[in-house]
């Protein structure tokens, strides 16, 4: 089967959002928690084989690898009704079971140790697919396992499957609850380096923004992880919808992300979704036009990245991909795009085409939705660098005081020096610089003044 995608769920966060993602996929494809096809779903034209494979006994099994260094989350998954969904051989829990202790270095170094076992699983999974298109990584960048193990696996994936795409859904830490993990700037910085260098595409899921949206837009006074995660799973499922519901275009992952990413490093995408409702909110079915949806997607309040709302900055869109689901008149798409461009609703880079792609996708026929049309925006916006800058700032603050570094020094990587941190900072700084450079017309000649780090 073409374009199979293997999902890797790493760490607590990764496994949780992964779990939600699979739940969502199952319901969209009419697959029961046991992995069997529901009676009503036998006639579907959807493609389940991108994310699932079929076992001999007609069970649909996710192409998913669950990795964690501590068993808590995976155990809870295995105690859920979806326990039988997963291939038990794809679940790896570190035998130590101690986790990474929110330490990137611990996660990374443990990754080295469990490399063989993990890549046995991944290799087997890759061998089991006809034409593997790539990997999707779910993790957070602030914790230990998701960031450390994730970074390690990213690097190894790049070595091992150099031609496969690696897309990550990376959860950025909630700045409002920074006290949770004080070393998160270190973790984030180190992970960001790997995300910059080894991933092909990073979908940024900013916990800060997600929480704000949950409280402000969805009016949840104290949003739970599962509520946030359902938002995330929604984004994940929609962003893969075109792969799963084939149509004329956007049938492969590369096709989806390639136009979004102008140069290899500017591959951090922010997301926006509309309409934002919770399950409880049963709104009457609203008629929404494509233009409405696209306009709303451009509004900052629907963006799921906590970037400062500074209108004076030069930040601009590099490219946009709108995935629109529902009953849409395709001819309206063109008109809507024209209007958006004419009215300059979105500021675009000065050096390139104002690339707004629109992918129309079907909705799952098995899920009732209150909205006829919904849209997900995947945007490459230079403003994303604000997140990285924030990380850099926080890192600098911690680094100035040499705070919490002893935990890192325990690991081999950092025993001799902290060059890794410096190098990471360098990479992230360059990334920020490149994003800033991309806001100016000079970006075309940007390489002339920039020292080469890529070769």
């Amino acid at each position, binding site marked *: 089967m*073409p*374009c199979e995608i293997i999902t890797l769920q790493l760490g607590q966060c990764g496994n949780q959002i992964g779990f939600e993602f699979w739940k969502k996929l199952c319901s969209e494809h009419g697959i029961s928690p046991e992995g069997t096809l529901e009676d009503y779903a036998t006639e579907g*034209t959807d*493609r389940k084989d991108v994310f699932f494979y079929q076992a001999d006994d007609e069970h649909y099994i996710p192409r998913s690898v669950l990795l964690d260094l501590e068993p808590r989350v995976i155990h809870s998954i295995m105690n859920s009704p979806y326990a039988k969904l997963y291939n038990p051989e794809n679940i790896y829990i570190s035998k130590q079971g101690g986790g990474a202790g929110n330490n990137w270095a611990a996660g990374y170094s443990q990754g080295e140790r469990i490399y063989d076992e993990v890549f046995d699983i991944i290799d087997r999974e890759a061998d089991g697919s006809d*034409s593997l298109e790539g990997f999707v990584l779910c993790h957070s960048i602030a914790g230990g396992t998701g960031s450390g193990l994730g970074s390690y696996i990213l690097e190894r994936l790049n070595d091992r499957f*150099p*031609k496969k795409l690696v897309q990550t859904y990376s959860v950025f830490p909630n700045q409002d609850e920074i006290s949770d993990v004080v070393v998160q700037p270190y973790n984030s910085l180190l992970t960001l380096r790997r995300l910059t260098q080894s991933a092909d595409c990073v979908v940024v899921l900013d916990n800060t923004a997600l929480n704000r949206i949950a409280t402000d837009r969805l009016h949840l006074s104290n949003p739970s992880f599962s509520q946030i995660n359902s938002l995330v799973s929604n984004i994940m499922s929609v962003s893969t919808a075109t792969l799963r519901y*084939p*149509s*004329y*275009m*956007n*049938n*492969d992952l*590369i*096709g989806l992300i*390639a*136009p979004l990413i*102008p*140069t*290899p490093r500017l591959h951090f995408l922010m997301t926006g979704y509309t309409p934002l409702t919770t399950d409880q909110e049963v709104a009457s079915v609203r008629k929404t036009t494509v233009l409405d949806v696209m306009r709303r997607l451009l509004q900052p309040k629907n963006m799921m990245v906590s970037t400062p709302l500074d209108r004076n900055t030069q930040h601009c869109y590099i*490219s946009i991909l709108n995935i629109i689901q529902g009953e849409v*008149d*395709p*001819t309206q*798409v*063109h008109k809507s795009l024209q209007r958006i461009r004419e009215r300059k609703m979105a500021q675009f880079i000065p*050096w*390139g*085409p104002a*690339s707004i*792609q*629109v*992918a*129309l996708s079907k909705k799952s026929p098995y899920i009732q939705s209150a909205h006829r049309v919904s849209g997900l925006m995947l945007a490459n916006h230079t403003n994303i660098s604000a997140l990285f800058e924030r990380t850099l700032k926080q890192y600098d603050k911690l680094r100035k005081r040499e705070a919490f570094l002893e935990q890192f020094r325990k690991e081999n990587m950092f025993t001799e020096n902290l060059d890794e941190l410096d190098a990471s900072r360098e990479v992230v700084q360059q990334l920020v610089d490149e994003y800033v450079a991309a806001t100016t017309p000079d*970006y*075309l*000649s*940007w*390489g*002339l003044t*920039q*020292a*080469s780090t*890529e*070769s």
Partner: protein
Amino acid sequence: MAGQGKFDALTKELITHVLGFQLRKEGQPAQYFKEGEENFVRSEQFVLSNLLYHHCLAVNSHAVRRSVEGLALKFTIHGQHHRAQQLTSLTSNFLASPLFQDHFQTDVEWSLLSLLLHLSNSPTQVPLQEIQKVAASPENTEDELQEQIDWAVYLRNGETKYVLGPEEPLSDWSVDSDCSDNEGNDATQLQACLVKNLPPYNVEIVCSSKQPTTRELLEQVHRAKSWLSAKTHLQYWGPKRPQQLPLSDHPVANVLKLWEEEQGLRGLYQHLTEWEVMREVLWVLLCPVPSHIFILNKKGSFTLKQNISLGSLTPGATSSLLEYLCEPLNQLHILDVFMHKYEFPSMDPPKPATILAYAAGLQLWRHRFQSTLVTLEDRVKKQESTCTLLWLEGELRPWLRTLASIFAVHSTATTTILEKSPRYTAVRLLGTLCEGVESASDSGIRGVLLRLLLHSLRHYLSIIHSWLLHGTLVDHAQEFIIQRDESVKANDERFWGEAFTVSLQKDEQSSDAKDPMKTILRFLSPLVVALTTVGKSRELLAILDVQPLPKQSNPCNLSRLKAETEQEQSLEEVVIKFVKKTVRATSSGDIEEEVHASNNEEDADSVLTEGNSHLTLGCKQEDPLLIAAFTDTYQESHHFATPATVDSITSLIEEISDVPRAISVVSLLTSALCPLVKKQQDILSARLISVLIEKNRLDRHCQAVRSVLLMEAGDIMHEFYSHLFAKLESGDGVDSISLTLHLQYCIARLYPDLAQFFSVSVTPQDLQDTRTGKDIIEENERAVGSDDRSDGMLVIEEMTGSCAKTVMVDADRGCTSHHNNETALSMPLARVGLPDITIQYQAPWPANLLLTEAIMKKFNMLFRFNLSLKRVTNGLERLKFRDLASWQAVIRSERNTEESGGPLQSRLHRLQLLRQWLLCFSRELHDHFANTVFLPYHHAVEKLFASRPALTTIIAEHETLVNKLITECLMSSSEKILPLQIVLNKWRA
């Protein structure tokens, strides 16, 4: 007139019999009679004049009775009461004789009476004593009518005394004449009769058989002669010039005579009475053959005979009074010949039934005309009122005008009847009739023509009827406007488009400015489509082995069937009724309707059982095939069948009266036929399409083709083209077989059952090269004439295709991003590395009706277009400079190029950005086509199938949609400029 010969013979026989003459044979005495002798001729003339002019043969019993009664009254007035009494009693006795009772149908008694009356000359003046002689005799006379008497012997006995030459026959005549009235009497009774009936001088002759003096004899002869001549009506057309008419002395009555004298032309002109002329006029109109007054000239057309004139008019005036009749006579003659020719169907060559029906319609009109003429003749004959030629002309004028109109139409309609095909003839006929009705101004004429039209249309209607009902286009004479092209089989993809053709000779259409064909098309054209659809639907359904109409459950089945048959059967009738109703709302239809309803049920039943019952009368007329099969035996029964069965409709048609000018016949017929045909069409179309969609999955085939050729099934096609591109990039050749296998493998996932129908063919590379080489030249030439609209498609191919190529080339070389736009523009698609791939879809019947080769060709155009789009975007998306084989070489040569183009990193960066530009552009194009072209098409087609219109609509709509696709993909040569094209041209500039 047909019985003329027999009549003559009988007359002669009568004369010889009555006179006792026998044809003289060898060695027989002179008194034996010889035909052609003057006396015989005279007697013949006498007999004929009596028979022909006094109508003893076609007797009116009332008139005779009245005359007898009048005679009796006359006797009474004259004081001859006894005679009167006797006459009455004799007559009644005579009439009461059992012989006549036995043969009441012949009216012999009245004939005899009338003859007697006629022969009696001034009965009141016959001396009384002689009457007494008669006294008892007449009764016996009649009583022994049958008795055989040897008249010849008897008469010869009586005649021996006179051997006197010319007078002899005269007396014989008188004897003869009284003999003729008293056929079968014996001598005494004859005597009595003579006394009663013969004029006195004749009696004298008979009675005074003493010694007449010469003078007396001469006088007798003269008297006899003058009596005879007075009594003999000579046909004025006979070889003998009849005696001058006893004209009145009034100069007005003798104008001709006066004129002749004046001109010195006495004797040149034959004098005719107005009465004679009138009657002859009526006769020739009844049967247009050359007659005395109206003769045929050399050209075969009617003209007035010279030297004939009315006594009261000058010859000029006469001819001017009669000339107007010549033309109608010609016309009538032609029409009659035509009608005679097309009275019966024939097999070789088959006569178009339409023409036959038309002829029958004409015949009906002719009958009407003739009956009018007969009425007129009766009136003239009776002389009860004053009838003049002018009056006659007035009576005839409307008829003649109608005749002229009919003839005008007829001649237009049938000029080509022989050379052209029956179809053309029929269509032309109907068209001309239509035209005729439309253009006629007089409502009466319109009515006549409409009736003719309806008659002629009947065959068409019956064809339509059987076609609608039974799905068979029975048209053995090849006259129906729609023709089944037998070369197109039902499972041919051209079936829908070409199975039925509306055949019209194109050249004919152009030549006539006012083309009758167009007229018929005007009301048939809305039907033609519907009809062919019905026909095709029927045929398809039959082949699909599906009941044309879904059967209902039993209880309602019967009533339904009945309702249907009523509806079905009455196509002709319904149409005609409708026309009739519209023309004039008549209430008389009710009774007939019932009659028809019962007829129809019978008909319908027999039709429905489709067995031997075909032979029932009702169907015979309707079924040309049977006519063909039973031609020999049929023709006789036809005559009986016709009045009994067909007349229901014929009479319906004939009941239609005048058509006001305001009613357009074309629209009338259209509105009469359309609902019926449309209804049937709707039913069948709905049925067909539901069968096609439900059982044959027409939509699924269509979907499969779309999925593959328009790449709607993005995933499987992605797999296919990825494979293809990978092969191309690796430098492996592509061949049809492996591609076909791969394609089928891909498709099998989505359409396991349809995958086998797909195949790929690749045009060999060398062929392609030569072709494209030529193309390049052409393109360059076209590019010179810059804004040439027709190469819109090339613009895209060039731009997108070459962009990919350029980038590839650039990337391979690792050189900087500046690519040469000039060379790119002239780079055709095939050169960019795409083989000329065609995907065939062997659509199984009946899906091939929709997915014809032509359509598939267009789909393939679109496919290649798509493929090139995909090629570009696919290549650009996947482009990773670091993965390229030349990457290492570039890295190594970094030092050499450093000076010229800046640091490698920067060059790479710019390359990346270029890629981004190109990708963005190609994606934009790709998305544009996807969103504004292919997806709307998808929706449109889905909607089309969901709404389940008629197959025709689907085919037509589908083609329109595909054409629209091509246009919107900038591949058509239409003049419309799409916005995209403007943009692209700007880019090019």
